[in-house]
């Protein structure tokens, strides 16, 4: 156990003179683009600091620099309890200095007990010559930590038998064990959207644990999209925007609306609409009608969409937008509710039943669920419908190649090599190919999740252009995305989900990033 380091004992808990973590002049470039530019922030001990920002604001880059996953550019410094971290930063060094990370994937061993999960991070106590694990001590240590944090759980319980909220709390308790046992006076706990997938009614239990940790003197960095949680929990806020600190300081009188403004960078209550998109005339025939759809997260969702409309579905992770997309795309069945397409109820429980009705679905998991990476580009493009190439008892490769080449030209997939393996294309070109193969089927309804995730600006523009052209031809396009700016840019209309329920259904032209952010946080559209 590392007790020798001088700084751990310097200031008692609550003495917040030296910040727990200080970031000085840190920058990070990816391929010439700054993800973070000259960032100075500090996180005080014994306080919860909310780290806010939209996708691409530099939030996760900052966390990854702290964890040693990314290295900052030369010149930046990170101080832990006043003491600099040596570059290059290694994950083990970070752990030794008392930084603990709880990611969305909690990294718990579900098949083992709570005590074992604690010991695997905190170290095993052994006895005797043979180094037998001292289970009793292990259990009593775990039990002390759990009690201290107000968790009534038996350390012998298998982690897999706990519900999501309890697992989250166990992961947090595991990260805090050295602090609770007094082995360290100031741990830093970094939480990356820990409540994103938890039911709303349970979030306060996690907050109670964090409150105890704060009183023990831990430095808590809380990354979230949920502004309502910030106002309940945080002492300080740091807002990142475009790779720089936009605002930092005590939460004081900031409320959800002012935070939303800070995150989006707009002034005024509702700044001018970003996009003056012309909504399709409401006289167009209805294409899709969803009534009372319920799933695991999605609750009582009703929507209707017209031909040629691009409809955005917005929400944070865990809001149910992914589930809604899968149900509409036919990959998952709702518990109840009906989906009607062009006046006919869509039945069937497999994607192919939906495909036959003209419904295509593109998942957000490109590598696993959209591309057959072991096949050539040509084979990927044509897999959805091979009938045109089946002539005289065999697949006519020439005809197939011509069809592939015309798609490659139309969607500018590079390199223009239909026979190259799909795995060898860049993410942006893979995504263009995925779009091309679906558009080739001329669907009545295309459901696409995060269409421009992880692709460069050029590919993003081409993908959006492809979706617009498809809509112009009469297809209804549903775009589910956590990227609100993308939806404002692309969609005619945005439906916002929060915890499975529709909180707003607005025309893009009549809303703003700020307002959408508030809807995502549960504010209802009047």
């Amino acid at each position: 156990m590392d007790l020798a380091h001088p700084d751990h004992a310097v200031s008692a808990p609550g003495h917040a003179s030296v910040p727990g973590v200080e970031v000085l002049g840190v920058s990070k470039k990816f391929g010439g683009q700054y993800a973070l530019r000259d960032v100075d922030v500090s996180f005080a001990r014994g306080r919860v600091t909310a780290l806010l920002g939209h996708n691409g604001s530099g939030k996760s880059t900052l966390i990854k620099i702290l964890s040693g996953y990314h290295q900052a550019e030369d010149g930046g410094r990170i101080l832990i309890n006043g003491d600099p971290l040596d570059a290059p930063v290694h994950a083990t060094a970070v752990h030794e200095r008392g930084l603990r990370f709880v990611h969305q994937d909690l990294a718990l061993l579900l098949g083992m007990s709570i005590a074992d999960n604690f010991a695997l991070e905190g170290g095993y106590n052994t006895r005797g010559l043979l180094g037998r694990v001292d289970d009793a001590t292990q259990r009593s240590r775990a039990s002390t930590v759990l009690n201290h944090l107000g968790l009534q759980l038996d350390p012998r319980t298998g982690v897999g038998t706990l519900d999501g909220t309890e697992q989250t709390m166990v992961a947090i308790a595991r990260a805090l064990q050295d602090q609770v046992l007094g082995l360290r006076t100031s741990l830093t706990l970094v939480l990356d959207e820990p409540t994103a997938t938890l039911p709303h009614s349970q979030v306060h239990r996690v907050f109670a644990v964090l409150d105890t940790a704060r009183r023990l003197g831990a430095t808590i960095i809380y990354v979230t999209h949920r502004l309502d949680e910030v106002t309940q929990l945080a002492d300080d806020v740091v807002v990142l925007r475009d790779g720089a600190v936009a605002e930092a300081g005590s939460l004081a009188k900031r409320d959800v609306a002012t935070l939303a403004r800070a995150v989006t960078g707009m002034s005024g209550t509702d700044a001018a609409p970003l996009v003056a998109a012309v909504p399709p005339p409401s006289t167009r025939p209805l294409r899709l009608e969803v009534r009372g759809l319920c799933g695991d997260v999605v609750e009582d969702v009703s929507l209707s969409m017209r031909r040629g409309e691009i409809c955005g579905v917005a929400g944070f992770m865990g809001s149910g937008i992914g589930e809604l997309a899968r149900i509409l795309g036919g990959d998952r069945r709702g518990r109840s509710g009906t989906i009607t397409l062009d006046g006919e109820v869509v039945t069937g429980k497999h994607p192919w039943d939906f495909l036959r009705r003209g419904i295509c679905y593109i998942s957000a998991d490109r590598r696993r669920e959209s591309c057959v990476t072991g096949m050539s580009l040509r084979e990927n493009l044509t897999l959805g419908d091979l009938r045109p190439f089946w002539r005289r008892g065999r697949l006519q490769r020439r005809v197939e190649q011509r069809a592939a080449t015309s798609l490659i030209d139309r969607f500018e997939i590079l390199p223009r090599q239909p026979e190259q393996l799909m795995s060898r294309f860049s993410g942006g070109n893979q995504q263009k190919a995925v779009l091309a193969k679906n558009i080739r089927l001329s669907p009545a309804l295309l459901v696409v999740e995060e269409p421009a995730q992880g692709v460069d600006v050029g590919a993003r523009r081409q993908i959006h252009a492809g979706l617009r052209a498809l809509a112009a031809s009469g297809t209804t396009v549903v775009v589910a995305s956590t990227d609100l700016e993308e939806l404002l840019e692309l969609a005619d209309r945005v439906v916002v989900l929060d915890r499975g329920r529709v909180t707003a259904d607005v025309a893009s032209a009549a809303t703003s990033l700020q307002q959408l952010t508030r809807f995502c946080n549960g504010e209802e559209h009047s």
Partner: protein
Amino acid sequence: MTSESSTVVAVEGVALRRQRLVTATTGATSYAVVAFLVGLCVVFAVALPGRFLTGQNIQAVLGDQAVPGILALAVMLPLIAGKFDLSAAATLGFTSVFVAWATGVHQLSTPAAIVLAVLIGAVVGLANSFVVEGVGVNAFIATLGMGTILAGGNLLLTQGTILFKGVPLDLKNLGQGRLLGVPAPFYVFLICALVLWYAIEMTPAGRRLRATGLARDAARLTGVRTSRFVTIAFVGAGALAALAGVLQTGRTGSAPPDVGPSFLLPAYAAAFLGAATIRRGSFNVWGTVVGTFVLGVGLNGLSLLGAPFWVPPVFSGIALIAAVSFSVVVERRSRSVG
């Protein structure tokens, strides 16, 4: 501006050259196993003058490789769909015993016995796919269990003795006869390979089968009925294994109770050698045929050289491990270059 654009051109040039290099090495490694087979023949021809390259020996190799070759094609089918079928060799064994029993003990006609045997193989495949796709049991475990059940069936039909009485002549002819100087079983092997090659490479069903094995989720979301293709693969594997079983009885004119299991490993070795050949990284028909002959020629040459009885299994085992290692290493290298 000019210097920048010239750098871009230079970088693209390097990328292009690299691309060509990759295609060139891919081309070379794709035929490494074929080259190895040719090399093996040359070495044996030189080391065994007048004994290896004789009409008689070539006929023996062609005839001997039919049963293991058809079984290799059988295990290849589920492998293409992304599943292991460990019951294929036991299916071969059970159907081998079944035809000997049906014709010898129950005087069934040879054509009827063959049809029944192939049906049994197909039913075994259907049962496998029911447990794997319907119930959701891991294919490794499900087919291991199925294989053991079939081994019990062997004991039941043979009552622990070797069946050889009354095996009809037309069945033996199928196993031992010649047509135009080429052993009859080799024709059966060739026909099986041609039919599978057509089905897998030329038809939409074959394309969908491959997509199922390569990326099941992506295939499913593109409208491929993935479960159906896994079922087709298991049923095809069972039927092919049964055909191999029939030939086995015809070839030896008898059916011992323990026939079968020893065919499993060479079949997988041939299929994996095949995956390192021709269409590298995926299981394919002609690669599997080449793989079968690498093993066949190797064993034949070694036995002519006087290798002791324990050598064949060692050789097959090494071939399997070497084939898989080879494809893993080549795959890793091509990925790091690309």
